[in-house]
């Protein structure tokens, strides 16, 4: 740390006004504030400056994402070796997934930061959040075999249309990472859904062990499989297996336990809102129970137990990392409850009643992102009305 501090101190004059690299000041500042809390002090008013600024809290989210990321890497290796019928050590399995996921992360960060830096120079503002969290979320919510150029196009689209068009960090209406996924899903459905994209190598036509299937659990349920399995039909998944998450899916979404560790970190540090996180699960659970009660006998998705709905697909990942995005979520306390509840409920509705889009979480969150300002407006307005009524009554007395 001392060395980095010295480097940053010594190079500072070069970037300041009149220095050699004056133009690159925003880039320099972004690195400086990445490593150290900026030394600004408040000049006016009585604002309290906390050491936890935007960058520090963003880094906490990255730390919370690490368990899901690491587990996802191991899971990819594990499923790949299962599909070709080999067994390897833990390190080798993890290494295989690491090699597959690293390019996704690099492309996501490279393209996203590239677009962001271009806009910093065009508009002359500072780099602040700098795509830190979105860049890590995007690789975690795509299938491992997504072509890198598609990921690059989607990331550029998300940063450009989802964020910069609205004015940059903190101004975006929808979650950029989810927008990137939605773009991929609708633009290149063959590479984003189906039963060959979730395990590495199937789409390239590698020779598989007989009977291996790379379908996600939601995919199996749509195709009429009652008992979820991983890879082989015999390899049935118990609730504990679903919690651990060794089955096909997007890179980071499968393990409930890894996501739960992330959730605990986020809640402990107070970065994510417990209201949203809790109410997403509550909304999903209640809606799934309701659908269970009215489900016709043959409908597998509607008959899936409510608790299982929470564990499969991207429900947990969306609830913990996507719905709680402070920029796009509702801001008021009561609004957060409503916002989260509706996300959970809509996700299950889309999942069960529209088989064309088995993963309803993405669409539900994007949908409620758009509605969150309206929710806030209603909450605030009703509060104002309530207080006005109270004021009138006391006046009459």
């Amino acid at each position, binding site marked *: 740390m001392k060395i980095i501090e010295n480097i940053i101190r010594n190079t500072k004059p070069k970037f300041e006004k009149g220095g050699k690299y004056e133009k690159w000041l925003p880039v320099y500042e972004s690195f400086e504030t990445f490593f150290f809390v900026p030394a600004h002090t408040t000049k006016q008013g009585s604002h309290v400056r906390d050491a936890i600024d935007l960058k520090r809290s963003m880094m906490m989210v990255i730390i919370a994402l690490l368990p899901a990321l690491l587990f996802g890497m191991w899971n990819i290796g594990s499923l790949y070796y299962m599909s070709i019928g080999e067994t390897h050590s833990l390190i080798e399995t993890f290494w295989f997934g690491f090699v597959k996921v690293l390019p996704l992360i690099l492309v996501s960060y490279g393209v996203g930061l590239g677009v962001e830096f271009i806009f910093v120079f065009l508009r002359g503002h500072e780099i602040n959040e700098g795509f830190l969290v979105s860049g890590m979320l995007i690789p975690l919510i795509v299938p491992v075999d997504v*072509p890198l*150029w*598609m990921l690059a*196009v989607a990331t550029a689209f998300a940063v450009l*249309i989802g964020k910069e*068009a609205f004015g940059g960090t903190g101004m975006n209406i929808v979650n950029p990472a989810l927008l990137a996924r939605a*773009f991929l899903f*609708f*633009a*290149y*459905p*063959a*590479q984003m859904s189906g039963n060959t994209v979730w395990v590495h190598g199937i789409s390239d036509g590698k020779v598989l062990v007989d009977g291996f299937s790379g379908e996600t659990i939601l995919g199996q349920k749509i195709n009429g499989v009652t008992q979820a399995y991983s890879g082989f039909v015999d390899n049935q998944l118990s609730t504990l297996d679903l919690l651990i998450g060794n089955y096909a899916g997007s890179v980071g979404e499968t393990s409930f336990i890894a996501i739960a560790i992330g959730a605990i970190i986020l809640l402990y540090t107070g970065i994510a809102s417990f209201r949203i996180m809790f109410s997403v699960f509550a909304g999903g659970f209640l809606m799934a129970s309701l659908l269970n009660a009215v489900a016709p006998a043959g409908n597998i998705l509607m008959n899936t137990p409510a608790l299982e709905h929470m564990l499969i697909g991207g429900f947990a990942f969306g609830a913990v990392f996507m719905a709680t995005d402070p920029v796009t979520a509702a801001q008021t306390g009561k609004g957060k409850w409503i916002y989260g509840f509706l996300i959970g409920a809509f996700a299950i509705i889309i999942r069960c009643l529209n088989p064309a889009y088995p993963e309803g979480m993405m669409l539900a969150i994007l949908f409620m992102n758009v509605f969150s300002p309206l929710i806030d407006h209603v909450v605030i307005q009703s509060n104002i009305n309530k207080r006005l009524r109270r004021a009138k009554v006391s006046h009459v007395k």
Partner: protein
Amino acid sequence: MSTEKEPLFSKKNIRLLTGPLGADNPITVQSLGICSALAVTVKVEPAIVMSLSVTIVLAFANVIISLLRKTIPDRIRIIVQLIVIAALVIIVDQILKAYAYDISKQLSVFVGLIITNCILMGRLEAFALGNKPWPSLLDGIGNGLGYGIILVLVSVVREILGSGTLTIPGIGEIPVIPQGAYDFGYVNNGLMLLSPMALFVVGIIIWIQRSRNKELIK
């Protein structure tokens, strides 16, 4: 009103013709006629036919309403305008059905829906009712072409990215993306075939236009 005779192509009249192509564009600035811009811009050919149809209908309707402007009672002017537009649209529709049946089928209901295109009513109300036939004709052609430019721009982007081709009337479909790119793993963007993407493309055009022309920013 001046008694002096104005030259046919005075500066003011030229501006009527060219204004809608740029700073006074019906789609990007006046926000009129966006619905049909979403619907018919998947391929270039229907977009061109559509914009020609709208230009013709708008030009004639403007002239007819402008000729009638002193005799139309104020209270029923909307009905009169609608009748004029509807008659012209039916003529265009019949001509398309007779001479360009395939495209007419592609455009399907959207030719009939020219009647409800906001540009038409907008221009009749805002311009033809208060101006002489000649400026009205120029205004109609100008706005029709302004609408057409955006339609063609959007459809070129959507067809190249969505289908990898360009369909030019009279020549047919030309592949734009080389086969080699597909062999290399390139895939057409399916989102471009869905209408929401037209909205994004129109939005990007508006963005570019406003960042070049600061006067448009309110």
